[in-house]
């Protein structure tokens, strides 16, 4: 784990009296390696380490008698600062229904997250409607319907038409039924699929969601920044959800996505059941990334 690795580095250096700037640079290389092994994007890791080195020099750690601990504290605090920021609650519409649109790559956990979110909103006294705009994936509509049944939330879809029409019709239906929040599930898509990214833009333009959440798999590696950057550019999401964090992936994607998009991480998926949803805690994820 990082504290031990770092103390190893500094034990070697300490024998030489106080550490020099070169020693600090060696330590920073070790930090960069830890971040890369935790799946932090290499450009983000490089920048992060440079910022930490600057802070460390500014804090005069070279004069410290416990440089390793002091540097680790700087690294940890910087990490929390970078991935944290205010965890604001989801926006609500002045005039219902509030629309929350859920997007992301294939298999990241969107449909499951929609169920978890609807479940949570229901527990808060809201009346959600799940809209199934994924007409592509075999049995996706059935999956969302089943999820809705499991949590006692209505769902709407229509396999005979287009995703855009489903969204429009679903919106009217929500109004009709007096639903105050819509959780809109969309098909997984690649950021490099121009047609599907355009479809998402159309849906967003039509429904004007109050929140657009980018759902990313917690075990994603270096590619996390590619997808996140393009989704931000073309769709502009308002928040991030990291799923499958009940595994042992270090979750460096959290830092990568946050760093390049500067959008808040709102939720963490922690299991397959529909109650496995947690509000994001930056210090927990930071400790996990540092191992």
């Amino acid at each position: 784990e990082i504290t031990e690795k770092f103390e190893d580095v500094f034990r070697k250096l300490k024998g030489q009296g106080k550490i020099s700037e070169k020693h600090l640079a060696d330590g920073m290389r070790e930090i960069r390696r830890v971040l890369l092994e935790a799946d932090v994007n290499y450009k983000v890791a490089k920048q992060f380490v440079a910022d930490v080195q600057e802070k460390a020099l500014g804090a005069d750690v070279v004069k410290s008698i416990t440089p390793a601990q002091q540097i680790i504290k700087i690294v940890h605090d910087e990490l929390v600062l970078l991935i944290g920021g205010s965890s604001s609650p989801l926006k609500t519409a002045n005039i219902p229904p509030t629309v929350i649109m859920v997007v992301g790559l294939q298999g990241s956990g969107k449909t499951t997250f929609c169920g978890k979110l609807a479940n949570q909103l229901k527990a808060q006294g809201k009346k959600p409607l799940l809209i199934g705009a994924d007409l592509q994936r075999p049995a996706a509509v059935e999956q969302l319907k089943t999820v809705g049944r499991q949590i006692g939330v209505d769902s709407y879809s229509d396999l005979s038409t287009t995703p855009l029409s489903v969204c429009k019709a679903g919106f009217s239906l929500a109004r009709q039924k007096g639903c105050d929040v819509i959780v809109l599930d969309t098909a997984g898509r690649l950021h490099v699929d121009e047609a599907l990214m355009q479809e998402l833009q159309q849906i967003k333009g039509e429904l004007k969601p109050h929140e657009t959440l980018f759902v990313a798999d917690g075990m994603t590696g270096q590619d996390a920044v590619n997808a996140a950057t393009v989704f931000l550019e073309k769709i502009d999401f308002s928040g991030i959800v990291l799923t499958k964090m009940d595994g042992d992936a270090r979750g460096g994607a959290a830092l990568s996505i946050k760093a390049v998009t500067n959008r808040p991480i709102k939720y963490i998926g922690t299991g397959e059941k529909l109650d496995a949803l947690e509000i994001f805690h930056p210090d927990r994820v930071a400790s996990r990334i540092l191992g």
Partner: protein
Amino acid sequence: VSGKTRIDEETLEEIEERLIAADVGVNTTLDIISALRENLQLRDRNDSQAVLNCLKSELIERLQMNGSADTASNQKPYIIMVVGVNGVGKTTSIGKLANHFVQDGKRVVLGAADTFRAAASEQLEIWASRANVEIVRNKPGADPASVAFDAVAAAESRSADIAIIDTAGRLHTKSNLMEELKKIQRAIDRKMPGAPHEVLLVIDATTGQNGLTQAKVFNDAVKIGGIVLTKLDGTAKGGIVVAIQEQLRVPIRFIGVGEQMDDLQPFVPEEYVEALFS
């Protein structure tokens, strides 16, 4: 600069970044770079094209342990079990695989042994009808081991050539789910001793270093016979397979390059390495 016998450090740094960016991982990257330093001829060290070619052959060699992508086995029915963590593309890959075998004139039976996830059996049913193959399924919540058992039984009684068993996605960290997987495997073996003849582990190309842990833990639970690397039609390179292949010594059998039935290709190391550097 004594540059004539040393590879240009800037070139090496670029290579390192390229490999890291492809999810090859720190350890494997450093290993590859040191192999490069050793193997690159003195005369080539200032030729960046030669350096790149040496790097490519180094990677191809590491990915070379490719068994034939076809099940040229004399087992009948040949039983394949598909495993992996959640959402990586198991069910979709099974649909594509079924179609691939049907094109080869084989008779295929699918087993919907994911009885847990919402609409999992319905999803596989649609693939079965697309590939024009039979499917064995049960109700949600049924014992997955018994569905697998029944699928093998059906494959035998219908003289199918191949049976492919779908399993629920599961994180390797969940020991009860890994135990369930072993139970499914035992049930298959009970019905047909020696089966499953091949366990395919599906890895998502967007997965980072956790992919190696997944491979090791799944391999400890059920012996992995091959890897399917999916979602290579995105921008992710799936470089973690280099480390997986080295440590597990299992071939990468197929790659997934899209969501349609035809989007499955045999893994070709040269093509994969070329795409890594494009």
